[in-house]
């Protein structure tokens, strides 16, 4: 069964025509907005813990915006979608690193606390 989301049909159509820019491909404003939002969210957190992944996302967003300026909506959309997913990945990696550090710190402090208390009661 051939089932494709509506937008994909449009892109596929654009490809089939072999065009990078076509009047029938709508500008991917939503995708660009989503990518921008995700890159901003990830920025502060991922800068330290996932810089490579963040860099990838930022570069792809820039490419998406360039493509928008050229009205190359097909490529703009693709870059934007990838930028969003890359930014999300970067953010998740950074959250993970932060949580691991916190878990380690608390575990250590409990260990210290226990030792202290046992020393006191003896």
């Amino acid at each position, binding site marked *: 069964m*051939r*089932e*494709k*989301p509506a937008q*994909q049909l449009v*892109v*596929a159509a654009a*490809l*089939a025509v*072999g*065009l*990078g820019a076509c009047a029938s491909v709508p500008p991917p404003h939503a995708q660009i907005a989503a990518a921008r939002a995700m890159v901003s969210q990830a920025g502060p957190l991922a800068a330290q813990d996932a810089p490579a992944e963040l860099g*990838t996302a930022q570069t792809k967003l820039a*490419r998406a915006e360039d*493509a928008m300026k050229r009205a*190359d909506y*097909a*490529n703009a959309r*693709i*870059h934007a*979608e*990838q930028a969003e*997913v*890359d930014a*999300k*990945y970067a953010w*998740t*990696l950074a*959250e*993970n690193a*932060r*949580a*691991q550090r*916190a*878990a380690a710190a*608390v*575990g250590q*402090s*409990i260990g210290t*606390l*226990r030792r202290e*208390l046992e020393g*006191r*009661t003896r």
Partner: protein
Amino acid sequence: MRLKLLWVAPVLFAAGCAMTPEANTYMENARAAYREAAANPQVQSRAPVELQVAGRSLAEAERFLQDRAPTALVAHHAYLAEQRARIAIATADYRTAEAAVATSGVQQNQVLLEARTRELEAQKRETQLAREQAELARAQTELSRAQTLEEAKGLQSEIEELQSQMQELQARQTERGWVLTLSGDLLFDSGRAVLKPGGRKAVENLAQFMRKQPERSVTIEGFTDSTGSADLNQRLSEQRAQAVKEALVGHGIDAPRVQTRGYGPAFPVATNDTAVGRQLNRRVQVVIAPDSASAGGSSK
């Protein structure tokens, strides 16, 4: 590097459609990533939604592949699917770590609480111990006070008892102690030293008293009037004292508690010139010592 290939992808779009083996490679990567995520129990429990999203992405990419979409498009969707699978895994990791932090926080509080509880219990025990010691000291003080009071009360009642007994015996208090005077005519026939029935009652009373006051001793003193020979009177008075003692012993009184003396006509209490006076002089005195120490003399 995968990334470089995907930078090329947009150019491929412009170049038009073509199905190449590379599409399968991208798909393989995506499938592998998804399998990894799906097999991870942490992902299943902590990031089920993210896993679903990754699964749908992969399915979408598979559809593009099956529908023979251009490689670049397939590659793009495969990339999205792969990244989403990796996001699911990383999300599960981070939620696990967060849960561990929360648990640790709880643990930390528990440890602190435990310590505090132990401290409080130790304090409570100390306080309890101090209180018990104070109670004990208080009880001991009260006990000794009560004992002293008891003793005082005991002595008091002893004194009262004695006084009433003396009253019963009609004894007089002198510097020698209590003195009971018994009429000689009541106790003995003239010139005889055998106790008459009339005297037995008096001796019974005396015996009863002595039983009630087991620590007391008595001295039985015999006296006569001046009629007749002094020597005979002396011997008679001694024999009469002895007779009273024997009667007391007969009532169960220990012999050592009873001393006897005879004084004959000495120490008259009345004149010997009148019959009445002489009768008064004919007497037996029972001296009840203040305590168990008796005044000299041997018992006969």
